[in-house]
């Protein structure tokens, strides 16, 4: 007697389950580079991929590439190894000029000089100071207050 209801419930459940991947798709695309990697983190890699791939695109303009030669070869994302956790960082990547302290960029503006103070390495670009760091295996630059 309860069988049809049970079946209906099962079907509903199946429908719900089959909707699952649709939600997952919203996380955004990207390329997994390992079978055994963390799936969730990889979704994050992917959004990072996209933004940085655009930077990559810009880097193909020879002028920019030449400007960057001495400061940042690692400035664009090559498809390896980093997974990022915050969308805010991704946003910061795109806005290179908005030098908010604590924000992170993956490519420096042109005409920076390397300054070493108190044993720490800085990049001084115009009025903005950056501290390089590895973010995953990519070199990134965090905006810091002027060192003294």
């Amino acid at each position, binding site marked *: 007697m309860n069988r*049809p209801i049970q*079946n*209906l419930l*099962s*079907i509903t*459940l*199946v429908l719900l*389950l*089959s909707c699952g*991947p649709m939600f*997952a*798709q919203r996380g*955004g*695309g*990207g*390329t*997994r*580079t*390992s*079978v*055994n*990697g*963390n*799936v969730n*983190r990889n*979704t994050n890699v*992917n959004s990072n*991929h*996209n*933004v*940085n*791939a*655009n930077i*990559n*695109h810009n880097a193909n303009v020879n002028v920019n590439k030449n400007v960057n030669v001495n*400061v940042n*070869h*690692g*400035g*664009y*994302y*090559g*498809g*390896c*190894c*980093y*997974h990022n*956790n*915050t969308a805010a960082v991704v946003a910061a990547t795109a806005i290179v000029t908005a030098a908010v302290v604590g924000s992170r960029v993956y490519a420096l503006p042109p005409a920076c000089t390397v300054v070493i103070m108190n044993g720490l*390495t800085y990049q001084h670009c115009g009025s903005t100071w950056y*501290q*390089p*760091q*590895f*973010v*995953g*295996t990519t*070199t*990134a630059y*965090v905006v810091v207050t002027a060192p003294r």
Partner: protein
Amino acid sequence: MYKRLFCSIAILSFSLSLMAQSGAAPKNADIDPAAVAALNKMGTYLRTMGTFQVKSVQTTDDVLDNGQTIQTNGVIDLLAARPNRLRAEIISDDRHQLLFYDGKSFTIYGQLVNYYATVPAPPTIGEVIDKLDEKYGIEMPLVDLFKWGSPQADFARYITGAIDVGPSSIDGTSCEQYAFRQQGLDWQIWIQLGDYPLPRKLILITTDDDARPRHSQLLTWNLAPSFNDEAFTFDPPDGAQKIAIAEIAPSASDKKETKTGSSK
């Protein structure tokens, strides 16, 4: 008349029940146990290897915001001496990096930028891989080689399809090609036939991205590499500057994950 109606209802409910069953358990029919067994055999073999050197010629698709796919090339040269030493060189269009692990610390060196960073590391390759992933968001190159055959690579848990495609030759070596499915990922692997069941080629297709980007690895193995201890320790070249590695700020969902992970 009523009998007929009852019959149709019975058939309908039976077929619904069949649908429900096939929906709830699609796995068994799509999984060839022989393909899973081959994967397990390869994993078991990989776990027996003490030292090895492997070179991966690989490609990775980047997906632009407009959905366009751009392929990048890279080469990874990895030397591992279990349980506690590893060295990897990553060369691609935009980077030339070296990773060193000597059982005590892990160093990443970016040769083009001449920056390096060193952090303390746990005592085994398996642990350092997990720490780099969880704390710094670094996926060790060719990480699968260290995961297959380990309890973490529990195929039964996540594989939804497994096919033995058939014989295939890679670089003149006889292999068997297999295809697997799991959520968000279709992948194929070519496993060498004979006494050394090594992965020789790997293709990953990310299926939860509309662009279906690919990653491929073509692997060349050296099972008797010559090396010395210096291979695993970093000696900063002139002018190399030490910088930090950013730690991941875990999101709420990641925190949960870490918790379940650490309770294992």
